[in-house]
């Protein structure tokens, strides 16, 4: 066992924490670590209060107006095969805040039963607040049970607030249904960078519905993904302009082996001054990219890895 602050965790849990939240020790600032269905450690600061929900599983995070340069870590680790949980985490972010929130879930399943974590995150972002949100998903373990993650994210943005979301799922998650919805008031700005790689027989769907409701609201939703082996992905991004606003969605994908990808970009303009753009491109790695790296001394396989690493960086 490893001493982690005032709790003890095992080596697998430690590795999962490193993968999903870059945590090598107890983080600075507020945190809540959830392990195998229970809160294992929790810490609030003067400005950031984390409290358990009374009516459901999960937490409420209250961030005081004007809080700046602080962070909240809320990683989830699961190492018990056959565990299924549904967790609600709500974030109430005060006006004028500037904070970083790091979530993420790591599942290690060595057993025959499926392990599933469905996390519903709701963000209420106050006027002028600025949030950076990082969410990483990771799976490992040799069991036949699936590792399933179904994250739901709801974002409610008040005037002139900013949210930058980085969603990463690179390895080991067998099945994912990700749904992200956002409602933006005037002057609010949403930036999403999603990076996804699926392998073996994995399946991942990612759905975005972004409503730009106020004048000057902007959204930029960009996904880069790689589907290898026999995996399947669906990227479904819809931006709805209900006011003079601007929106951009992009899906850029590499397919390998028998990988399959369906990209469904959608735009809906309900205001004559809504400017909306979508782009989507799917294809295999270009042969001349591999040849170029081979002329630098890399093998074909090393070249592919470098190209994918760069693409998903």
């Amino acid at each position: 066992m490893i001493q982690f602050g005032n709790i003890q965790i095992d080596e697998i849990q430690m590795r999962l924490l490193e993968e999903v939240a870059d945590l090598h020790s107890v983080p600075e600032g507020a945190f809540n670590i959830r392990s195998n269905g229970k809160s294992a450690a929790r810490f609030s600061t003067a400005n950031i209060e984390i409290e358990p929900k009374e009516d459901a599983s999960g937490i409420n995070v209250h961030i005081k107006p004007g809080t700046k340069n602080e962070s909240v870590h809320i990683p989830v680790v699961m190492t018990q095969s056959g565990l299924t949980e549904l967790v609600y985490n709500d974030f109430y972010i005060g006006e004028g805040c500037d904070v970083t929130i790091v979530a993420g879930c790591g599942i290690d399943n060595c057993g025959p039963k499926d392990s599933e974590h469905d996390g519903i995150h709701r963000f209420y972002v106050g006027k002028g607040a600025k949030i950076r949100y990082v969410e990483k998903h990771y799976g490992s373990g040799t069991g036949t049970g699936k590792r399933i993650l179904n994250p739901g994210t709801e974002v409610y943005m008040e005037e002139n607030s900013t949210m930058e979301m980085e969603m990463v799922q690179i390895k080991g998650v067998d099945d994912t249904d990700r749904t992200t919805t956002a409602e933006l008031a005037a002057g609010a700005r949403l930036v999403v960078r999603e990076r996804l790689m699926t392998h073996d027989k994995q399946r991942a769907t990612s759905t975005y519905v972004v409503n730009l409701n106020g004048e000057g609201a902007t959204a930029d939703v960009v996904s880069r993904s790689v589907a290898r082996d026999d995996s399947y992905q669906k990227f479904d991004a819809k931006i709805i302009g209900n006011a003079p606003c601007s929106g951009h969605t992009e899906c850029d994908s590499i397919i390998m082996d028998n990988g399959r990808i369906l990209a469904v970009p959608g735009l809906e303009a309900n205001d004559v001054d809504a400017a909306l753009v979508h782009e989507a491109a799917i294809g295999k790695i270009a042969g001349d990219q591999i040849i170029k790296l081979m002329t630098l001394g890399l093998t074909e396989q090393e070249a592919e890895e470098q190209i994918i690493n760069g693409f998903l960086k």
Partner: protein
Amino acid sequence: MLELRNITFDVHDDGQDKEIIRDVSLTLPDRKLIVVTGPNGGGKSTLARLIAGIETPTSGQILLNGEDITHMSITDRAKKGIGFAFQQPVRFKGLQVLDLIRLAAGKHLTVVDACAYLSKVGLCARDYINREVNSSLSGGELKRIEIATVLAKAPSLAIFDEPEAGIDLWSFQNLIDVFQRLREHIQDSSILIISHQERILNIADEIIVLRDGHLVRKGSKDEILPELIGTSAAIPTCRGPEESEAM
């Protein structure tokens, strides 16, 4: 030293075989800068790609320092010391200039060391080192980064396929300086440039002329260059090949 013995390369096009390179034999000695010239479509770039292993000859042999590399992979040839700068450099989404230079050097260069290669090709390193090698770079910028990767690789045989293509006049002078410095520090390596620019031919030790897949002339610069002036095999910087008379 690189030796080509009776190299022939055919392609199958429109239901018939077409000879691109016909029975070319030549030796590229060490410590020399050699320029291959000749009219468009004469087989110059194909010859360079055959040496780098991107194409395999239909018949003949390629020897590098006495070792037969005819059927060796691109990777193995690169490891043996062959470097290749593409005529049309490849773009990579996500890979940064720094990544590419580190891959070329085959080791974890410091940012300062990597920047030195960019400075050598006339790019302000600070502005480029963290840029992605993607479509945000102009053709000329990409070309210079391509040359920087070959410098970082420090090959014993460096091949540049039409390095001047897509480069503006100002950069062209810079490019000549790059090759002149390479020539000064050539040591035991050798440099092969595919070009029909007179000013690049002018810094050559030896010139090879390819036409219709045949090697038609080979000799020292002083011997060959005067014969080429005014033909499409040696065009002044300010004129395009289409304006020159075919040789």
